[in-house]
């Protein structure tokens, strides 16, 4: 890059130098020419002088002497000029000195004495003087001629030098042009080569990148296709862009058929319990513009059958946060729910097992009394005694009936949620647990308002309270107490996060051992138990499931200070919509 420029600058410098020296040569030619002219002028002036002197000599008329006199001044000027001209050429000054001296000699020895002789009327016809005069003038002419020859020579040398300089410059320019042409060509070739290489490597890199992009796209596509969950991608307008194979299988739509269809047509969700339409995760993402939580719902397949699924939606944004796409991921949980249902059923049986002691006691004791009373009645008794025995047997049988009803209530499923008074529900649970609690010497106080009404499934709620009260009792030391308290919650204006709806909070408070902080997080996970072989580890998990199904929630707080120990469980159950039937159902 730098080389041609440096070279061009060098060539330019060389040219300037050449031009400068050519100019000097021309100057020298001019000086030489001028000197020749001056020397010629000197010749002419000397001739004039001679002519003047000769005329005056012949005529003795002063008028003829005029050329001589007029030439004296210019001749001095011409000498000076010639002297400086030769000096400018650094020439030999002796020639001009000789010339001036020869002329002066002629003036003083020939011309002036001749003029004086004529003025004085003397003899001018002295052949000797004329010959001397001629010789002096010849001498002047010879010297001047030599000067002219020298100057001509100088001129010729300078001209020759100038010609050679011009020739050299020409050669130099041609050579420089050639070299710079070659250099520029080489440089251009070099640059072109570099550009070509860069272009080629860019092209290669681009090809590699395309290859990598393609491979990664294929990999992602393969991952997406082989992933075990259904994936639906739709545009921000809700048009289907992609269904992976699991999604195709679960929805019953093929990718080809579903392409560009509305998400609401392909991915239809209904509520698990009521079969009402539920908000599509797509709409939820559009509304909130962020990831949804896991939603449980029924997916209506193309041919109309339903699947239980868990699904979630997430937005895809561009760099500016504009919603580009929505991705819905879902999974068939029918099998999982079936397993869960089996676990729930097994917990129900476990509750029954735990209640077996109570059942045996509560039923066997009154039955034993009745059997014994019948034995007494069969043997001789007075009518008064008979009356008393019948009365006692009837009381005992009432007890059995009460227990069996409570047991039945525990297991009789109702198909739709109904409005329930909580008080009789909790009371019936306490009837079943009475024996267990008495045995553990635990006193229970239960304060539940009569108008504490919720909507739900009585058998399931009995199971929940049996579980929670049994847990409290098992954690309590003999002689301690458990308090059950319920209060009504009005629907707050605008809704509060914890209790967005009207309902009832039931608080079960014990003074037992409390729960270790490390266990609190795991309380509601299945198979977590602190009771060793005596617990299934399903109780709280199932209870939570039931409460959440009712639209409620359950929270646990544990106190472990030295002055106050124990656990408080709060259960919120919504009032719901169901009407309380006027004829009391036997719960």
């Amino acid at each position, binding site marked *: 890059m730098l080389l041609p420029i440096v070279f061009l600058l060098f060539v330019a410098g060389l040219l300037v130098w050449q031009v400068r020296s050519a100019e000097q040569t021309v100057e020298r030619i001019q000086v030489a020419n001028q000197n020749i002219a001056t020397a010629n002028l000197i010749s002419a002036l000397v001739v004039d002088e001679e002519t003047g002197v000769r005329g005056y000599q012949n005529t003795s008329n002063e008028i003829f002497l005029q050329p001589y006199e007029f030439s004296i001044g210019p001749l001095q000027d011409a000498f000076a000029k010639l002297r400086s001209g030769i000096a400018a050429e650094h020439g030999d000054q002796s020639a001009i000195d000789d010339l001036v001296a020869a002329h002066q000699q002629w003036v003083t020895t020939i011309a002036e004495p001749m003029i004086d002789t004529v003025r004085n009327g003397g003899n001018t016809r002295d052949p000797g003087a004329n010959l001397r005069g001629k010789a002096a003038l010849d001498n002047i002419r010879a010297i001047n001629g030599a000067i002219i020859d020298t100057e001509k020579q100088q001129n010729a040398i300078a001209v020759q030098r100038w010609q050679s300089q011009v020739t050299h410059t020409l050669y130099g320019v041609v050579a420089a042009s050639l070299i710079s042409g070659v250099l520029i060509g080489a440089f251009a070739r070099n640059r072109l080569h570099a550009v070509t290489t860069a272009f080629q490597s860019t092209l290669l890199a681009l090809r590699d990148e395309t290859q990598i992009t393609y491979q990664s796209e294929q990999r992602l596509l393969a991952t997406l296709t082989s992933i075990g969950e259904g994936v639906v991608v739709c545009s921000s307008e809700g048009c289907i862009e992609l269904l992976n194979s699991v999604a195709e299988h679960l929805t019953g739509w093929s990718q080809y058929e579903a392409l560009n269809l509305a998400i609401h047509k392909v991915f239809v969700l209904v509520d698990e319990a009521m079969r009402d339409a539920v908000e599509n995760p797509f709409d939820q993402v559009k509304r909130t513009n962020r990831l949804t939580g896991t939603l449980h719902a029924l997916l209506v397949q193309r041919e109309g059958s339903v699947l239980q699924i868990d699904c979630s939606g997430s937005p895809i944004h561009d760099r500016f946060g504009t919603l580009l796409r929505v991705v819905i991921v879902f999974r068939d949980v029918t099998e999982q729910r079936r397993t869960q249902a089996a676990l729930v059923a097994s917990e129900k049986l476990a509750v029954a097992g735990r209640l077996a*002691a109570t059942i*045996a*006691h509560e*039923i*066997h*004791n*009154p*039955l*034993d*009394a009745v*059997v*014994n*009373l019948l*034995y*007494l009645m069969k*043997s001789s008794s007075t009518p008064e005694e008979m009356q008393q025995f019948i009365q*006692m047997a009837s*009381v*005992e049988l009432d007890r059995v009936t009460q227990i069996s009803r409570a047991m039945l209530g525990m297991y009789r499923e109702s198909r739709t949620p109904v409005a329930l008074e909580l008080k009789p529900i909790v009371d019936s649970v306490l009837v079943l647990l009475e*024996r267990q609690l*008495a*045995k553990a*010497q635990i006193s229970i106080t239960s304060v539940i308002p009569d108008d504490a009404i919720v909507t739900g499934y009585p058998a399931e709620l009995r199971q929940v309270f049996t579980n929670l009260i049994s847990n409290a009792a098992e954690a309590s030391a*003999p002689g301690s107490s458990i308090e059950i308290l319920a209060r009504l919650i009005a629907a707050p204006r605008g809704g509060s996060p914890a209790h967005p709806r009207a309902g009832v909070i039931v608080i079960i408070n014990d003074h037992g051992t409390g729960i270790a902080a490390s266990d609190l997080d795991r309380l509601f996970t299945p198979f977590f138990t602190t009771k060793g072989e005596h617990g299934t580890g399903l109780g709280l998990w199932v209870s939570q499931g039931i409460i959440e199904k009712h639209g409620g929630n359950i929270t646990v707080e544990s106190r472990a200070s030295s002055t106050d120990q124990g656990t408080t469980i709060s259960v919120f159950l919504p009032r719901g919509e169901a009407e309380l039937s006027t004829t009391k159902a036997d719960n």
Partner: protein
Amino acid sequence: MSQSGHLVLCVDDETVGLQVRRLILERSGYKVITALDGKSGLSLFESNPVEAVVLDYAMPGMHGGEVAARMRERKPHVPILLLSAYLGLPPEITKLVNVYMTKGEGAPALLEKLGSLFEN
């Protein structure tokens, strides 16, 4: 039929059951004293010349097994009949007592097993 007035202590937290059992035993000729829990049963056991005990297992506070063990410490010779609504009590409890039977087997069975305690 008549058991010539052996003194029997009945302990049970079931008021009605205890009352009926007392009637049956008295009709068979036993003298009967009753207690509604283990603690008062033990004090009656110590202060009376009890010849046999009919003991309920499931009682609040102190269960029948514990009561039987304490009675054995005081008067090891007094036979004990343990009644229970439960089926299948653990052997370390049943081996403490002379006879173990479940409620609901009926009065004749009770009388027969109690009578057998006095035959030895």
